[in-house]
């Protein structure tokens, strides 16, 4: 009876997500509980001095929300690409023996495509600060 098996499989798949659901529920309840507890129990006596911004040891000279050099974004974007690549490499490395030559070639191809992008950004001067 294939249709029972399929229905069972779906049921099983959804059951696998049950711990995630419980985790989310517990997380929400616990988080809300702590915040509410703090609000109820802690004394609240604000004054100007307490609410003003501060820096360690000296008078504050600028707000934290200052402008960033836009070039940081470029660096961050480039970083993400190569960071994600590592995320692919780790699981691949652990099962490389089983994947054999096919796995090795697949990853080589993947890295080769990344290198194309790397050459591009290098030649375009994206890695230079000035």
């Amino acid at each position, binding site marked *: 009876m294939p*249709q029972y098996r*399929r229905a069972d*499989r*779906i049921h099983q*798949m*959804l059951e696998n997500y049950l711990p995630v659901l419980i985790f989310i529920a517990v997380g929400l309840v616990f988080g809300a509980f702590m915040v509410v507890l703090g609000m109820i129990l802690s004394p609240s006596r604000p004054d100007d001095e307490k609410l003003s911004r501060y820096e360690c040891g000296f008078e504050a000279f600028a707000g934290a929300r200052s402008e960033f050099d836009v070039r940081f974004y470029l660096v961050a974007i480039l970083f993400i690409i190569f960071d994600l690549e590592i995320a692919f490499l780790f699981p691949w490395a652990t099962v490389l023996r089983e994947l054999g030559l096919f796995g090795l070639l697949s990853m080589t191809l993947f890295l080769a495509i990344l290198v194309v992008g790397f*050459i591009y950004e290098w030649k375009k001067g994206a890695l230079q600060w000035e």
Partner: protein
Amino acid sequence: MNFIHPQFSLALPEMILLGMISIILIADLFISDKGRVVTYLMTQATLVLAAIATAAVMGADVALSFNGHFIIDPLASLTKLFIYLVSMVAFAYSRSYLIERDMYRGEYFVLGLTAVLGMMVLASAHSLLTLYLGLELLSLSLYAMVGLRRDSSQAAEAAMKYFVLGAMASAMLLYGMSMIYGATGTLNLWEIRDAVAEGSGHSLVLIFGLVFLMVGVAFKLGAAPFHMWVPDVYHGAPTSVTLFLSSAPKLAAFVLMIRLLVDALPALASAWSDMLVIIAVLSIVLGNVIAIAQLNIKRMLAYSGISHIGFLLLGVLSATPEGYAAAFYYAIVYAIMSLGGFAMVLVMSRQGFEADELSDYAGLNERSPIIALMMLFIMFSMAGVPPLLGFWAKLAVIQAIVAVEYYQLAVLAVLFSVVGAFYYLRVIRIIYFDKPTERRELKPANDLKVIFIANAMLVLLLGLFPESLMNLCQSAFIY
């Protein structure tokens, strides 16, 4: 562990394209501005190579690969061939426009080719995963292309709007896909179809997922009420990008819709057919009525595009193979006409002058009768005047809905194509009967002029002999 090596040869066109994209990206770095034509020619050669490869792997049979994630069937192969053709024409149209505006860079062509790669993956997708992968590759390339002109605030606004709304549509689509996956337990389109037919999926979850899928697809197609981005993006993007954006990706979005609705969820046809009725009616009415108020030709063509998508949906909502074939035909015809429509703007524009106001076309007949005549063909075709191509496309979809006895819809479609004729004819009136505001001789680049004339003549010739293209479209839907 039972790992089956995929049959790589079926994906040969995609592999060729990816390889060539990498080569062009690197090669362009070492090409000086004067030798940029090499990049351009390599781009066109890539599309020719991909077309040859597609023709080689094309067969009458259906073949699956990559664990059922990838399919080669007549619909996929035909769509790809038309996408190459339309993209080649779009690149050829853009060349002189890009040179005049200092946008003649390798990135334009590389992004264009990645968009084509995304469309190819989309056309051959056979699971929710590959569908989404292809769609994102296509969309991300298009966002970047729209914003390619960084110093133009209009283009930046268009790109931002397109990106934010597009990301939201993708999220909707993805959410719908997750619902379908949750209900059926599989990503493979045919397995979804079987699961739904067996009735093992929860019907409420399926319908819930279907609604979200529909929102995503309607957005990507630019159908009302998810059309808000279309006029702004078409208007703000550089004209050559608008031309590309409005042609080939519509074919891809059509295949996305067919794969999701017809391949995966035929059992829910009564549900999605009703949704499509609403979307189609809104698109046809809104597109045609608002287009009348537009004085900017790019915005006018954007609204006209919305109404054309409405007509295309008429074919799909009939839920018959004839209807799908008619809609496929409409998608191809729209792509050809849209190329011609935006090429009108390209032909008229020159350095420092975009020619996107209707008044710029006044008295064009006195300045260049041949180009005026070609524009007449394209406008008449969009309006659906026989014997031009647009007429046959409208006829095919209306026949398809009459065959399933949607008479009111057919009457509405005919009525609003008459409303639509008003603003197409207005363009013709301006070209032929208004006094020209400038006398300067019209000098488009030679290749632009030749392709424009060929494009308009194609609209005429295919209109005179509509059978061959129609038969081709029908061959994609024989199951």
